[in-house]
Structures are given as structure tokens and as C-alpha cells.
């Protein structure tokens, strides 16, 4: 089953709306922490790329 990213995001938002506030904050914290890790991963790759030059 293929899913459009926008459709996926709409489903996520719908599910998030149904989530109680406390859990919602936990989910958002998890998303934020994952984003932090992803940003750091990209920064690391950029650093390796600089060192390789």
C-alpha cells in the first residue's frame, strides 16, 4: 500500500488530535528528539566531508 506523504501527515495530525495532552507532549518530545538527532547526523556528515577535502 503506497501512501502520499501529505496523506500520511494528515493521518498523523488526525491521530495527534485524538491523543490526550500529556501523551501528545510525549509524542512531540520524541519527534523533536529524533529531529535533533537527524540534524546532528547531517552536521556530522558535513564535517566528514569537510575533513575529506
Amino acid at each position, binding site marked *: 500500500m*503506497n501512501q502520499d506523504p501529505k496523506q500520511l501527515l494528515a493521518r498523523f495530525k488526525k491521530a495527534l488530535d485524538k491523543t490526550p495532552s500529556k501523551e501528545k507532549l510525549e509524542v*512531540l518530545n520524541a519527534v523533536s*528528539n529524533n529531529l535533533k538527532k537527524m*540534524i546532528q547526523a547531517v552536521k556530522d556528515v558535513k564535517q566528514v566531508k569537510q575533513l575529506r577535502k
Partner: protein
Amino acid sequence: MTKNPFENPDKPLESSGGHEEAPEQEMAPAELESAIEGKQEEINAQAQELSDEINELTSSDASPEDFSLLEAKLEEIGINRFDEDDKAMIGKMWGWILGVTTGYGYMQLMETLGGHYSNPEERLATMGTALGIGLAAGVLATSASKLYYWMQKKQEAK
């Protein structure tokens, strides 16, 4: 297949990991709503930062090693870039891209080989053939990519 945490939008979400910043003590409803709003703003800013960083990395001379390293790092922190659905979608996209380019290439080739169209009907017929070939190539490429992922899955299961 990666478990999709929001497969059922009618079911409330559960967080999976990354609890470092979760509040330990009970918060008042107003305080909680304000924290949620603040976190959503933070996520928007982070998403923008991530997008900028990726643009910066890919806009210059990014090599295949850079992408492999990024993929390895994302897997290391438990974020797989693509699940099986994404892979099938990417396979389909490549199929269509290949199909359209093959069709267009065929049309160009016919033109170069001297098939200068003397009338619109002839041109239309050639375009129809080209599109047909493109469509067939697209279907073939889609099936090939699906087969490739199926074989990869089988290999991983061994």
C-alpha cells in the same frame, strides 16, 4: 516492514523513545497546552533547520559516500529512511521516470533517424507509439524494482 505508528488515525498516538525532555511531574492543563504549543514551534524550527542542512549538504558536491554515511548514521540512531511502502513508491516513481524518458528518447530517435513528420497524423501516431513504449517500459521497470526489493527481503530473511 517498519511499524507505522500512525496507521490508524482514530487511535491515539503512543510515543516510542526520546523521552529525555518528557516532564516528570504533573502539569496544570494550561501549562500543558502552553508546553505543547512551544514544542510544536520548536519542531517547526527544527524541521526548517534540518531542511536547510540537507539542502546545504546536497547542493554542493555531495558524493555517494556522503549519502551512504548519512544513511548509516540515520540507521545508527534508529531512523530508517525508507520502509517497504516507501521503497515500493520509489520503485514506481523510477519506473515512470524511466518509462517517460524512454518514450521521449524513442520519439527523438525517430525524428533524428529521418522520420520527419510530414503531417500531424503521422506525428500523433509516432507520439502514440512512443507513449505506448514508455508505458510498457514503466510497467516493466516497476515490476523489476518490486522484484528487486522482494529478492532483497528474501535475502535478509535468510
